[in-house]
C-alpha cells in the first residue's frame, strides 16, 4: 500500500467543484441512468426499510404481511425487546457496547497519534525497519492472532472483561490508523516544526502544541471509524465475552436467534434496528467525511 497509485496523489479532501461549462444536458441517456440508479437504490435500501418496517409490526402481521410497511404501527416490540431476555435488560448491552467502543476510540486516538508522530516527523535509528513492520501488520489477518492472544489474556485473567477488547488499542495495534495519521502529518509543513524549534520547543511540545492540533481531521476520522468498527464487531466480542451481564449488543442480539419462535421476531427486529441507530447517527453527522475522507486517504500518497 506504500506504493500507492500516484495518479490519485492530489485528490483533495474537499469535494471538487463542478467542472466549468455548466450542468450536463438532460438527454435521454441521462434519464435512463437516473431510472437505473433509482431502481438500484430501492433494491439497496430495501433490507433496511424491511428491518424498520417489520420492527413495528404485530406478531400476526409478521406472520401474514411481508410488505415493508406495517398496516398498523405498534411500538410494543421495542418495549418487549428492551426487557426481552430474562434477567438482563437491553440497556445493559447498550452500556457495555458504549464502554467498549469509547475505550477503543480513546485508545486508538492516543496511541496511534503518538506512533504516527514518531514515524512522520522524528529521525531515529532503524525507523525504516519499524515502519516496514508497521505496514506489514496492516495486512495481517486478525484471526491468525486470536488463539495465542486468547491464551495470553486468559493467563492475565482478562477473559470475560472488556479489557482484551480495549487494552490492545492503547498499544497502537490498529496499524491502519497509524498509517492514516502518518500520511496526514507528513502533509503538515515542516517549517512549522522548525519555527517551533527556534522558539525552544522540543519534540514533545512540538507534538502537543503544533502537530496534534493540526492533525484534527485525521483524529476525527479515526474516531468515527474506530467507533463504527467496534460497534459492529462481532468476532472478538464473541470470543472474549461469555457472561450475559458482560454481553455487548451484537452478542446480545444473538440470544434472540437462539430463542427463535414466531413471537421473538418482532422484538428481535426492534432491537436490531435500535442497535444500528448510533452508527447511523455517526453517519449523518460525519457523512461527508466518511464518504469522501477515509476511503480515498488510503490511496493517497
Amino acid at each position: 500500500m506504500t506504493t500507492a497509485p500516484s495518479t490519485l496523489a492530489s485528490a483533495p479532501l474537499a469535494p471538487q467543484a463542478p467542472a466549468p461549462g455548466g450542468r450536463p444536458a438532460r438527454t435521454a441517456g441521462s434519464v435512463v441512468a437516473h431510472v437505473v440508479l433509482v431502481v438500484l437504490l430501492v433494491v439497496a435500501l430495501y433490507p433496511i426499510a424491511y428491518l424498520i418496517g417489520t420492527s413495528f409490526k404485530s406478531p400476526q402481521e409478521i406472520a401474514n404481511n411481508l410488505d415493508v410497511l406495517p398496516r398498523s404501527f405498534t411500538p410494543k416490540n421495542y418495549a418487549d425487546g428492551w426487557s426481552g431476555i430474562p434477567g438482563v435488560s437491553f440497556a445493559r448491552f447498550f452500556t457495555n457496547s458504549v464502554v467498549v467502543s469509547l475505550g477503543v476510540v480513546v485508545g486508538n486516538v492516543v496511541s496511534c497519534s503518538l506512533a504516527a508522530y514518531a514515524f512522520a516527523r522524528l529521525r531515529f535509528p532503524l525507523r525504516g525497519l519499524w515502519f516496514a513492520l508497521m505496514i506489514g501488520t496492516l495486512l495481517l489477518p486478525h484471526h491468525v492472532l486470536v488463539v495465542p492472544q486468547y491464551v495470553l489474556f486468559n493467563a492475565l485473567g482478562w477473559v470475560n472483561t472488556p479489557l482484551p477488547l480495549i487494552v490492545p488499542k492503547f498499544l497502537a495495534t490498529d496499524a491502519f490508523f497509524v498509517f492514516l495519521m502518518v500520511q496526514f502529518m507528513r502533509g503538515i509543513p515542516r517549517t512549522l516544526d522548525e519555527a517551533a524549534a527556534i522558539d525552544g520547543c522540543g519534540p514533545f511540545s512540538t507534538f502537543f502544541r503544533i502537530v496534534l492540533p493540526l492533525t484534527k481531521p485525521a483524529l476525527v476520522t479515526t474516531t468515527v471509524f474506530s467507533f463504527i468498527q467496534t460497534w459492529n464487531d462481532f468476532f472478538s466480542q464473541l470470543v472474549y465475552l461469555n457472561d450475559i451481564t458482560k454481553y455487548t449488543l451484537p452478542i446480545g442480539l444473538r440470544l434472540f436467534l437462539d430463542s427463535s419462535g414466531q413471537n421473538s421476531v418482532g422484538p428481535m427486529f426492534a432491537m436490531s434496528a435500535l442497535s444500528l441507530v448510533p452508527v447511523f447517527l455517526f453517519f449523518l453527522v460525519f457523512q461527508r467525511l466518511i464518504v469522501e475522507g477515509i476511503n480515498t486517504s488510503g490511496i493517497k500518497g
Partner: protein
Amino acid sequence: MADTVSRAPRVGLRRAARPPAPGGSPRRRREAVAGYTFLLPWFVGLFGITLFPMLYSLYLSFTDYDLLQSPQWIGLDNYVRMLTDDPQYWNSVKATLLFAVVSVPLKLAVALGVALLLYRDRRGVGLYRALFYVPSLLGGSVAVAIVWQTLFGGQGAINDILSVVGITGRSWITNPSTALGTLVLLAAWQFGAPMVIFLAGLKQIPAEMFEAGSLDGAGRFTQFWHITLPMLSPVLFFNLVLETIAGFQGFTAAFVISGGTGGPADSTLLYTLYLYLRGFGDFQMGYASAMAWGFLLVLGVITAIVFRSGSLWVHYADEGEH
C-alpha cells in the same frame, strides 16, 4: 495543500532510508530518544500483542492444547490431520474460496458500474453516493445478518416477491446449494465502499483525455476500454487487494445465518468460522493454531499473486515522467 500532501511522503520515505549520520549532535540524540519514547506503546503492542503471539501460535500448532492442561508436543500431527484426515477442513476451504472468488468480482463490478453511472450524471451525486454507502456502513453487523436470514428464509419476503413472478422458492438459507449464495449477495450488497473509491479515481481522469478520444471518433465503449479502465487500474487494484483480504475473513454473517454451525452441510463454513468452532467451540487450541498458520500462508500466497498480477495490468500514468 493537496500538493504538499502528495509530495511530502516521498521526501519522508527517502529520509527514512538514509542511515543516520555517524556521531550525531546532541539534538539528533535527543530526537532519537524522543522517537523511541513516542513509539513505546507501539513497541509493546508489536512485540507483546503481535509478534510474540504469532511465534507462540506457531509453537502451539505443533501441540495438543485445550487450555486446561499444558500443551503436549505432537509434531506435525495437527497439520497432517488438517490436510489428510479432516473432510470438514476441506469443506471450509472450498466454501471460503468459492465465496471469495464469486463475491469479490461481483462486488467490484457492481461498484464500478454504479460509479460510472454516477460519474456521468453529476446531478444528485452527493445524495446517491451517501445512500449507496449505507449498506457498507451497516452490512457487517449482526443486525443486518439477522434481517438477511429472515428475508431469505422459507417464509421470507424474498420468496413473497418471487411468487409474484411465478417462482416458488424454498428456504434459501437451509438449502446447501443456495446458502452460500445468500452470503455472496450480502457481501455484494455492500458495494458502496469500493464505489466511493472508484468515484474518487474517476474524478482524477483528465477530461481532455475523453475529449481527445471523442475527436478521434471513439465511442463510449472504446473510451471505457482504452481510457477509463487503464486510467482507473491503480484504483481497481487497490480495491481488489482490500476486498480480497476482506473476502477471506468473512465471519459474522456466516455465523448468524447458519446459527453458528456453518451448515447446511458445511456450505457456509467459512475458514474463520471453522477456526472459531475448533478453537473456541471445542477448545482445540493447537489445531486452531495450525489452521491459523495455514490461513496466513495461503492468504500470503494469494496476496502475492494479486500483487504480481498487478504489474501486468496496472497502468501508472506518470510512469514515463520520472
